Each structure stands twice: as C-alpha cells, then as structure tokens.
C-alpha cells in the first residue's frame, strides 16, 4: 500500500469512526436517561396510584429496552 492509498483510507475510516464513537456516546447517555425516567415513573406511580399505572410503567420499560437495543445495535453493527 503506497502512502497515497494509506492517506485516502485514513480519511475514509477516521470520520466514520468518530461518527460511531459520537453515536455510541449519545445513545449511552439516552439509555441513562431512560433508566432515570423509569425510576421516576416508579416514584410518580407511588405518589399517585391510578388504574393506568401499570401501563405507564410498561411503556417506560419498553422505552428503556428500545434505547438499550439501539445502543447495542450501534456498538455491534455500525
């Protein structure tokens, strides 16, 4: 591989690598947010118990798993 090819490859790979790191960091922060949100939903449903508490909590769980799923997808497939 000559220096020119190496130079080209460097400038093709590095931006994508930066993009991947940036995406993973953002998604990790979102997963943390989803965990905090779920914890808050649990507290909210304790302060005010309503018939729909279970449904609202389940939506929070789905939200957390979706966030975790996209994070893992970004780590392994990007």
């Amino acid at each position, binding site marked *: 591989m000559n220096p020119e090819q190496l130079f080209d490859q460097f400038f093709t790979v590095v931006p994508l690598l930066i993009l991947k790191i940036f995406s993973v960091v953002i998604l990790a922060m979102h997963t943390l947010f989803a965990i905090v*949100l779920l914890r808050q939903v649990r507290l*909210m449903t304790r302060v*005010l118990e309503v018939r729909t508490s279970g449904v609202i909590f389940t939506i929070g769980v789905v939200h957390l798993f979706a966030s975790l799923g996209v994070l893992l*997808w970004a780590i392994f497939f990007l």
Partner: protein
Amino acid sequence: MPDIFVSPSSPASVPLSPTAFGIPTALSTLVPPGSGGMLSAFHFMPQGVHFETQESGEVIILLLRRHWITNVPWIVLSILLLIIPILILPFISQGGELIVAIPQTFITLLIFVWYLLTFSYFYSHFLLWYFTVSIVTNERIVDIDYINILNKKFAATRISRVEDVTMRARGFLSAFFHYGDVEVQTAGTEPNFLFDSVPAPDRVVRIVNFLLGKQEEEEET
C-alpha cells in the same frame, strides 16, 4: 371461628358514593360532561385512585389536571418530529441512492435515534402532564407539581385552613375551551394553592366552597 388475619380493604376498591360522604347528589351534576375518562383532566370522586399521603377515611372528591388544550404545543411538535424524516428522506435520496456520502447503516441509525428521542420527548411531557395533579379531598387540598422529570413539589393544607377560593379565566382559548386557574388562599403563612389551567374552574370553586362550608358546619357543631 375467629379470623386470624383480615386484610384491610384498599381505598381504591371501595365503591364511592357522594351521598355516603355527606356530599349532595346535586354536586355531582356540576361535573362537566365527558369527564372521568382515563385521560380526563377532571375527575369527580375517582375510583381506583390513591395518593401517597392519603389518610384512612380521606376520600378524593376532585382530581384535576391541566386542560388537554394546554398540551397542544408539545403534541404538535411531537407529530412534526414524527413526520420530518418522511419529508426529508426524499430530498437526500435519488432513485433509492443517497446523495450524501454516508453509509446506509448510519442513516438507519439516525432514523432509529430520531424516533427514540421523539418518543422520549413525547413520553416525558405526557408524564409531566399526567402526574401533575391537584387533589381535593374531604379533608385536604393537595397539590402535586412536577416542574420537570426530576423536580417535584408536594403541598397540602387542611380544608379548614382555606380562606378564599377564586377563579381566573384569561384569553380566548380559556373562554372557548372553558378552563382557567383556581386560586386557593390559605390562612396565615401557609402558601396559596394554584390549580393551573383546570377544566370548568367555576365548578371547582363551587365544589371547594361547598366542602369549606361543610367543614365550618362540622366545626360549629
């Protein structure tokens, strides 16, 4: 044979009747039509509802949230966020190929992240609306206020400490959709309560005034 253990009946499972608590049935006619549903902002004697510091024998008379019309800005923004990728994608692709030199996997990830953040935005706003409630019981007035997801304000006062109840409707939307603020002034140094943008504020004032009168009667006797 004597019972070894009798489980206490949950306040949520007790069927509520206005007359059982000395509340005239005429008061229930003040309830606006269409109220009491799962996502309603006005609940009169709701069943299956219980709050953290609820005392035994304390019955929820009113459970109020902000009027649904106050949610329109974040609902509209959520819908816009939903349709933005559908509107933008045709402009950055030509015959199924993307104009910009970004790998397809990144575009897929971007779409996933976009919808995830949109859902987070919608869900957190819904939670703030749903759990920010003003409660009037037969004994107290309780205000549970979520400023944001992490900050909560909980305030309560006895009905007997209430001095004055006033309502304020402001603007065209307030008059058209029949909602407004209800201010409950309390005695002494206790903070006042503000039921923000609740439906049928005039009816709320009448119900609180009735409870106030009833409390005064009970104190006199």
